[in-house]
């Protein structure tokens, strides 16, 4: 047996600490993909056991039951039974249960036991069980279940050593099919009565926190305060890092510029590649800081409470409390936000959330907002405490949220579904997040950007530079060189569409790469206004000289609502398997953005 690789499957209820255990076992050697044909996340990894044998681990989606209707649970069941096409039959099932919540989790263990495949039970969170005075007779439990039972503490170093040992020495044997009685709940009660002493059904610490977190008034205040602090932190921590990255790339551009010979190649590298990379990498810190806090709140168990507090409000606009978490992620980027909608069980709620997620102000919009606000909104105090520039940014955020509520509400009115939409959401025990789980989560989400960056962004930056440079101006040129380039021709054509919004041809042109990735609009404007390298103050004064305040406001509103970016539309296609949803998203956002920008331009022009 030893020598050959061993396939094991981790399975268990949601919130049993399964993913933390998976992280402990496999470390950073993880791969996240989808199961063939469905949008169910497939996490796999591997480790080398002390005996030298390779163990391949697949972390199955959490499930409450195997007979159920959700795609997650269907995948889990099929993989466990070895009937999922293309998936290896697991040699050993490691069922994970929270030792403090056996009343719920043992039922699922018994259900998996019924399949009759080789199996061990990992009794997780033994530290929390000990703290609460819960005593478990592991020997007796193992006897009653007819499988090895191993204690684990997934969040402690070495907390899975016993499990690794058990997996390593396992000589998996099938358990025999029909030993589990029909009434699983009765069997669980009987097993618990014989093997577990539980002083209190709930954790006093949970009770105390929930008295505040779930309170009708205090709970709302706590949520508002938490969100306020998170967004403050995003700017307080993210901004210095962003500035440092921009400075770094600026300096790098200078060094490389001196080293390269004068000519098109130098322009491409310094103005195109390095400036573009600097802009994109520049907002990575803000994304990561926001995701850090989301992961912190998620791992601690608070986010489902926030979803509970907000449920009524979200339902009234046509969403669900569960929409809260994906929409919060969308403030960093709509892509992980839309992927996060998989946790919304109701398909209609999920589609509505996907539809409005791109309206949340993602961090890619910030470089554009920062540029326009810096150039057109005076740095002036309002009412003593507020700053006019900060207020403008705040208004853009609010505009996005208000539009999302409006669109969801309209979608609810149009949608004719009379089907009941269930919430049914577990509020897990509070726990201190573990750095490893946060770090891996952050890496997983950060990697989405780095992938996007390396492909689409770089190619686009180079392409934009090329169409701005070629063909060159004729010898008897009377206008600026860029007017003769491909970029100039395209910009002038597009202007027919966008002139009613107050956009000149340079802005119209910048909307093309912005469709691939919003933030590149800044780099494009820098290129067409020929201010080169760094896009700071020089570009702002160039813009202020060339476009009116009304046009600038109109452009900001455009960026708040416009159908962008390409990657978002691609992810909508992937997650919904429907081109109709893509067309719907693009269509409504284009109409919304066009109408709002038109009104902004006319009203601002009329007031001026």
């Amino acid at each position, binding site marked *: 047996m030893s020598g050959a690789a061993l396939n094991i499957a981790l399975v268990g209820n949601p919130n049993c600490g399964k993913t933390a255990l998976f992280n402990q076992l496999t470390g950073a050697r993880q791969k996240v993909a989808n199961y063939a044909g469905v949008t169910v996340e497939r996490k796999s990894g591997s480790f080398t056991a002390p005996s030298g044998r390779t163990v391949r681990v697949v972390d199955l989606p959490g499930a*409450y039951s195997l007979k159920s209707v959700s795609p997650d649970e269907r995948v889990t069941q099929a993989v466990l039974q070895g009937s999922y096409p293309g998936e290896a039959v697991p040699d050993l099932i490691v069922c994970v249960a929270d030792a403090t919540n056996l009343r*719920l989790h043992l*039922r699922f263990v018994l259900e998996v036991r019924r399949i009759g495949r080789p199996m061990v039970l990992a009794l997780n969170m033994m530290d929390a069980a000990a703290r609460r005075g819960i005593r478990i007779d592991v020997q007796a439990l193992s006897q009653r279940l007819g499988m090895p039972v191993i204690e684990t503490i997934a969040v402690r170093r070495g907390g899975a050593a016993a499990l690794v040992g058990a997996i390593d020495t396992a000589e998996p044997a099938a358990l025999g099919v029909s030993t589990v009685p029909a009434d699983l709940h009765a069997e669980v009660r009987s097993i618990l009565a014989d093997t577990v002493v539980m002083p209190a*059904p709930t954790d006093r610490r949970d009770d105390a926190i929930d008295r505040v977190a779930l*309170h009708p008034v205090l709970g709302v205040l706590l949520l508002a305060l938490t969100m306020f602090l998170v967004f403050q932190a995003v700017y307080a921590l993210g901004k210095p890092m962003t500035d440092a990255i921009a400075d770094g790339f600026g300096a790098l551009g200078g060094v490389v510029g001196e080293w390269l010979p004068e000519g098109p190649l130098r322009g491409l590298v310094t103005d195109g590649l390095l400036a573009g990379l600097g802009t994109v990498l520049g907002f990575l810190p803000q994304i990561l800081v926001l995701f850090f806090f989301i992961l912190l709140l998620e791992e601690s168990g608070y986010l489902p409470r926030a979803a*509970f507090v907000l*449920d009524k409000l979200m339902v009234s606009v046509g969403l669900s409390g569960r929409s809260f978490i994906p929409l919060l992620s969308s403030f960093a980027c709509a892509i992980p936000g839309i992927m996060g909608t998989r946790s919304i069980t109701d398909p209609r709620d999920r589609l509505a959330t996907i539809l409005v997620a791109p309206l949340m102000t993602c961090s890619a919009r910030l470089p554009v907002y920062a540029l326009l606000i810096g150039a057109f909104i005076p740095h002036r105090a309002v009412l003593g405490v507020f700053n006019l520039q900060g207020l403008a940014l705040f208004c853009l955020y609010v505009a996005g949220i208000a539009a999302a509520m409006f669109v969801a509400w309209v979608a609810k009115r149009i949608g004719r579904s009379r089907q009941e939409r*269930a919430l049914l959401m*577990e*509020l897990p025990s509070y726990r201190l997040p573990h750095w490893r789980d946060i770090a891996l989560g952050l890496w997983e989400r950060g990697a989405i950007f780095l992938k996007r960056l390396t492909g689409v962004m770089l190619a686009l930056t180079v392409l934009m530079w090329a169409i701005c440079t070629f063909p060159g101006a004729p010898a008897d040129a009377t206008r600026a060189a860029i007017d003769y380039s491909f970029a100039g021709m395209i910009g002038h054509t597009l202007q027919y569409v966008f002139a009613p919004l107050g956009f000149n041809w340079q802005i119209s042109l910048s909307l093309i790469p912005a469709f691939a990735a919003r933030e590149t609009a800044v780099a494009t404007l820098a290129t067409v206004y020929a201010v080169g390298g760094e896009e700071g103050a020089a570009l702002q004064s160039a813009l202020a000289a060339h476009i009116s305040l009304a046009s600038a406001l109109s452009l900001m509103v455009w960026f708040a609502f416009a159908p962008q970016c390409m990657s978002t539309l691609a992810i909508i296609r992937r997650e919904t398997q429907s081109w109709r949803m893509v067309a719907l998203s693009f269509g409504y956002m284009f109409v919304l953005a066009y109408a709002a920008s038109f009104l902004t331009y006319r009203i601002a022009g009329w007031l001026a």
Partner: protein
Amino acid sequence: MRLTELAKGVAAIVDHVADQHTADAVAARLRDLGFVHGEPVRIVATAPWGGDPIVVQIGSTRFALRRAEAQRVNLQTAHGVAA
């Protein structure tokens, strides 16, 4: 008595979960989660803006349920309502 009629913080015992229509997936899920005959249950919290949804303690787990879902859970009346 139904779970939706139970006052916050009062202990009760589940009698059964009633199907609202044939193949009621919500009812089946509630039973899977432990809403079965003889199980102690308690409402821990009610949401702002009209008390919907509610947080219910069943076994050692807490679930947020909308009132439409909680409506299916029938409670024992005989010896159920103790402090």
